[in-house]
């Protein structure tokens, strides 16, 4: 009897330990964000402005474009791939949306075209990667140039002005029905983040994505249809770039083919800061979203401090390396 109760106690202890571990694992990604918030809200010069509701709202709005891109990128990176064409795709979608509105299509259709364009670019990425058996880095590097080029071509190498429609209110900091509190784009972002988190964690498709990223040979052995799944992953990533492009158009009110240059690296950085592994098999939507907000709040805080752009760049660069290093240490301890 005694030994039995001992075993029970030991089991309870194990549970406690794993609970602490779980809590730490769950909190881990938040810690960085909390740290950034604490730092800026304790600096007297910016303290009161930084935590003001209007500032939080504007940070949220600024995050929408990167966040939408990061939702799709999370899937791509977990599957062991990468999408370097994300930012070009965003620019292309914004140009298409402006073009369609200019051409007299209804805003709903224009939005639809924008998103669809992004999806098509993603699908082409996926199809090339699976049918030519090229590494995603190369295919999407090529697409980075192609999509940007096509965007410039369609726009005639200049900005496309378009008449103001409700599409432009998607990113308005003070939304029209004031009970919305935040820009509709922010709500769209939250909605999709929740949906994608559920899909990633609980859907069969999500499990397949993890399996492919963890070990593609095993996934094939277990009857997962690799090509189909990968094409779907890149198409989803493309669709989110398309939506992000629509938001970009909404913010700028013009279709600009030169917008968002280099933004793909921000998107990738967000996913990686949030625990995504470039070798595949690891990552989460929550993590990626926190990654987006860590970078957004840093930018915001630095701007308020009146620090020049290069300081921001240095800090964010350092954060990327530190975040991944910390994540690895955390994982090693978990073993």
């Amino acid at each position: 009897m005694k030994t039995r109760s001992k075993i029970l106690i030991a089991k309870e202890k194990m549970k406690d330990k794993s609970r602490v571990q779980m809590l730490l694992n769950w909190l881990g990604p938040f810690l960085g964000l909390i740290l950034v918030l604490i730092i800026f809200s304790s600096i007297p010069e910016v303290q009161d402005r930084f935590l003001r509701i209007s500032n939080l709202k504007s940070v949220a709005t600024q995050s929408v474009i990167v966040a939408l891109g990061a939702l799709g990128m999370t899937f791509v990176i977990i599957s062991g791939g990468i999408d370097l064409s994300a930012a070009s795709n965003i620019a292309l979608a914004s140009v298409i949306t402006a073009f369609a509105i200019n051409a007299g299509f209804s805003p709903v259709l224009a939005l639809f075209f924008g998103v669809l364009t992004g999806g098509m670019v993603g699908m082409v990425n996926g199809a090339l990667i699976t049918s030519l058996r090229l590494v995603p880095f190369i295919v999407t590097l090529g697409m980075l140039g192609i999509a940007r080029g096509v965007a410039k071509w369609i726009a005639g190498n200049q900005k496309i002005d378009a008449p103001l429609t409700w599409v432009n209110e998607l990113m308005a900091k003070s939304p029209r029905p004031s009970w919305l509190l935040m820009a509709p784009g922010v709500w769209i972002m939250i909605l999709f983040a929740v949906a994608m988190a559920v899909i990633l964690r609980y859907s069969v498709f999500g499990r397949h994505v993890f399996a492919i990223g963890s070990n593609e040979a095993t996934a094939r052995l277990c009857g997962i249809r690799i090509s189909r799944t990968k094409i779907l992953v890149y198409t989803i990533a493309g669709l989110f770039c398309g939506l992000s492009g629509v938001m970009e158009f909404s913010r700028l009110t013009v279709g600009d083919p030169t917008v968002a240059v280099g933004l793909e690296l921000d998107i990738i950085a967000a996913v990686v800061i949030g625990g995504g592994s470039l070798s595949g098999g690891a990552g989460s939507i929550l993590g990626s979203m926190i990654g987006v907000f860590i970078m957004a709040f840093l930018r915001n805080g630095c701007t308020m401090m009146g620090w020049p752009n290069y300081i921001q760049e240095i800090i964010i660069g350092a954060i990327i390396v530190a975040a991944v290093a910390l994540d690895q240490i955390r994982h090693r301890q978990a073993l």
Partner: protein
Amino acid sequence: MMNCSPPSGSLLRMEHISKRFGATCALDDVDFDLRKGEVHALIGENGAGKSTLVKILSGAVAADQGSISLEGYSFKSSNPLASRKQGIAMIYQELNLAPHLSVEENIMLGREIQRLGFVKRKTMQEAVEKALELVHHPEIKSHIPVKKLSVGAKQIVEIARALVGKAKVLIMDEPTSSLTQEDTLRLFQVIRQLKNQGVSIIYISHFLEEVQKVADRFTVLRDGKKIHTGRMEEISVDDLIQMMVGQKFVEMFPRIDHEIGEVVLQLKGLKGKRMATKVDLALRRGEILGVAGLIGAGRTETLRTVFGLDSIEKGTIVVGTIETDKGAPWIRIGQSVGLLSEDRQEEGMALSLSVADNLTLSRFSPYKKWGLLRLKKRREAVEFRLKQAKIKAQDPEQPVFGLSGGNQQKVALARLLHQEADILLLDEPTRGIDVMSKSQIYEWMGKLVQQGKAIIFVSSYLPELLGVCDKIAVFHRGNLIDIRPVPDWDTQSIMTVATLGRIPNENQVENSDRQGKDER
């Protein structure tokens, strides 16, 4: 340095070695001694402490207690490099060679002879030639890149590397697990030569017959304790097994009655992308069909073609009643065919995924509702399977890399059961796992065929093929030479067919390598 004088001939002495990992005691007061120029086999089940013991020598792990002396001087090592410098080198199971570099560059890697930062090519070449001469192997030339060598030759290169480093003690951990018979024999020759040069070898292997051939003495470990050290010639394999498993009585090859029914899988002149020639084969319900042959004889390639991992070039496969010349794993899984990969690390397991994911990956359907997984339901199912299969895992959500090799293999097998496969293609299911797990796997196989499933069992370990199969097919260089019921085979005759491609006891030379392509 207090107790200096070792008994005559003792090169290495380990005394009262203990090591704990958390709550588990990996080694408990173990003594071990190695004489100059002897091959000393270290025998035990997986987890008996063999690896820990040699890791202490190689410097990868530090002992908690105990003393080690090498040539009478106390030996301490905190890392593999320090061990190597003192003359103890480990030949790893997973080879540590840079595939793009040449044999010579690999051998001299990290110990380039240099002057003012420039390598002294000539001196190096001489040292390499000397070492290669000692381990003579026709395939190895100092200038060719290592990736062009066979696994066996690569291992010899590793040994040569250790020799250039003036190793006194070589540790070999399962050196033959991925070697062909030919390469194994060559390795044994090299080992004999090394012995004559006064090099001592610690030899770890699960292949007891091999151990008997190559070792002078043996030490059996069980549950971290030393059970016995003795001379190899004075002990039988059965006694060794008895010592390894202890009091637990193990019936190595449990025979379970089963009935053989109609043909469920047939290969008709099947040739896959990586198969040398066409193969004809039929598998019946309730049958275990063993497949023997050397590594690279086409056994794995045949299984992979059947399962749709390699594309079909010629011929057809009949699964049940459906004849097809196309295939993909997802189609085969739909036809209740399952494959266990020979390469657990690279293919069989997604190591970073959880036990639950690995176990259920090939069949999510029972837990699926509107495309979403019901994780609670799955957890219950997985817990049941783990208990049923006696898999030691703390939690179904724990990553699979935390499990021992034997338990990982059981997860891979449990996946096939969970998948409800009726036709199981098992490629080396017992490789590198301990005796207990092996015997458990044999028992499963027996139970499965009793339920009317059919199994193709590829193995390089002949006793297990002879022990559990109904029929055995033997491959030689891509050709299926012969299929016979088990009573018509013995180790000798299988080996003859596998190595020579000829059916023994038949004087006509009817089936030599080059003419063996006659259509059956």
